[in-house]
């Protein structure tokens, strides 16, 4: 089963290599990995997407915790969280197809971030299903290049004082 794991680490050189080395050395999968600084500049957050049975996921979490530079590990899977991924897609857009490409971008609330006479570069944000849907729709026009950030995820905030009795918030309709 796929798991999204959020890891807080010391923002130090070599930490990424410790984490990726752990995964390769112990034969764990990484489907995507995203790292950036948090509000506290001494701490970075990694969002890892991995796959494995319960025993493997348990080992992954324990092994991550064992790394001296790792401050906190949270397996978001099983709790409520919001996740997003951003993709930039360079798609060919000839005179005959430019309007259709723009329509697809519009439907998926994407942005055009670069234009040339024969192509658009698009920015699409969403979960991996949405990004895959855009890719599938754009493929017939000819996708030149694609770059994806990998997933980032955050646990939902608790809603306090409302009828929901402290339940986690809901995703607003898109």
């Amino acid at each position, binding site marked *: 089963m796929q798991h999204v794991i959020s890891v807080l680490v010391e923002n130090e*050189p070599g930490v990424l290599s410790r984490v990726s080395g752990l995964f390769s050395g112990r034969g764990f999968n990484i489907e995507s990995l995203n790292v950036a600084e948090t509000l506290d500049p001494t701490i970075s957050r990694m969002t890892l997407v991995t796959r494995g049975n319960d025993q493997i996921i*348990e080992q992954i979490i324990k092994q991550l*915790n064992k790394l001296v530079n790792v401050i906190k590990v949270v397996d978001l899977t099983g709790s409520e969280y919001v996740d997003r991924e951003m993709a930039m897609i360079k798609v060919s857009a000839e005179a005959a197809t430019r309007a259709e490409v723009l329509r697809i971008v519009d439907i998926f609330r994407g942005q055009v971030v670069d234009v040339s006479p024969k192509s658009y570069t698009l920015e699409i944000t969403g979960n991996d299903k949405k990004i895959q849907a855009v890719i599938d729709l754009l493929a017939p026009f000819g996708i030149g290049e694609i770059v994806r950030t990998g997933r980032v995820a955050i646990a939902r905030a608790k809603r306090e004082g409302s009828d929901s009795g402290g339940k986690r918030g809901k995703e607003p309709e898109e």
Partner: protein
Amino acid sequence: MKKTGAEILVESMKQEGVDTIFGFPGGAVLMIYDTLLKYSEEIRHILVRHEQGAVHAADGYARSSGKVGVCLVTSGPGATNTVTGIATAYMDSVPLVIFTGQVPTMLIGNDAFQEADIVGITRPCTKHNYLVKDVQDLALTIKQAFHLARTGRPGPVLVDLPKDVVADSAEFSYPSKIKMRSYNPTYQGHAGQIKRAVKLIAKAQKPLIYAGGGVILSNASKELTALAQKFSFPVTTTLMGLGCFPGTSPLFLGMVGMHGTFQANMAITHCDLLIAIGARFDDRVTGKVDTFSPHSKKIHIDIDPTSISKNVQVDIPIVGDAKNVLKAMLKFFEEEPAQDWPKVHADWLKQIAEWERSSPLTYKSGPCIKPQLVIQKIHEITNELTKGDVIITTEVGQNQMWTAQFFTFTKPRTLITSGGLGTMGYGFPAAIGAQVAFPDKTIIDIAGDGSFQMNIQELATAVQYNLPVKVAILNNHCLGMVRQWQQLFCAQRYSQTVFEVVPDFVKLAEAYGAVGLRASKPEEVEPVIREALGIRRPVVMDFVVDREECVSPMVPSGAALTEMLLI
């Protein structure tokens, strides 16, 4: 007052209570070695002949004394030569701090002379490692390195010291306390879990304690022995656990696993409760995991959460220091209704005794020296001469397994052996380290002719510092354990395991300035051991033993523990 990086390093080591280091100099550590001269009264430097020897010696020093072992080597090849030693210490959880020289910071990454990315290379085989980029960070880094090495599950920590950082200077104040937000080992076991474990133990009909090296690391032998004796629990240990429970006790079953005793492997398969303490269900212990101890509930006490449910699923995990957890267990047991424990477990102990009677550890005598005889004689004679106050190190292979089987260990920290990594060439430098820690104790390396040759250069170290270590070579002119596997699994096709050239170890010892003795017949074994033990100098004993002897019993790799070959 400002101090140079080199001075900060040495002062910090003093603050950590270091009085001995093992090392080998070079260009990148020139200033450190120059500074060490000034401190020669306070810090003793043992000059080895190969950096691998330095790490193994520091490792033997650490395992025998319980202190942190310290090494100092130069950059590049000096650093890479430590890797096997570091990996050995990492697998067996030995507290070490390794200081490596590094090229100046401005040259790092430039493929400079004697540059190696040792922090990158050792990342997966250290508990943690550091590259110090600023002399201001040096004292804190050293503090953290020693703290990490000796706390929690101990392990080796490497600190890489660029030449310019060591030459630079800074105000020196050594931090007295340390707090790391990302490192907080759990020492106290969860009380609820311990109580659940005690309830389960009190109900068990066929309990078995399976103790590992963690018991020795946490100095929990006393508590383990108290628990086992009070409740008549039979005890088996891993290779790393030998000595944590008295081998002379009727409750002791010997070692478990691939070359474990028949009764230990049968008991672990048939017990209804397995209490694992500071052991990690290694493949050499479990055999085929699916058939490992199939009828038992399992309690697992370990300070490292990753050890728990890694290979074998357990019913009651307890994360904590073995000593603390065992103490808490003994306390909670007082709340349980008293039972006549020897009587409760009488049938089970009787069954175990029957297994032992049916297939005891044994060997057949013959016209040539049997390696097992040599080990038994060493045990007998050291018992007589030193009242058992002896430390045994081993190399890896048959010599190691026969030592585990035929030497009766009664105290912790008396068997020093490379268990996890299985490093040939470990035992001799480790013996040197143990002898440095205990100058007056009898230290014997039980070796094979293959392993001993892997770090034979350290004979010069032993002679230089007049360390009276004894080496007992079980010389079969081959790589015995691999030869045994080839005999059993490759239809006796001995591919590259028979040495066509073996040096004359007696002459070799003499060439180094040590003493060489040889025994070629069974009746010569005892006189040679007695003579060696009477000499206050390094002695190499060359026992010419039966080439075809096998370690028995043997569970083939990947087979169930009950599928023992009784060779």
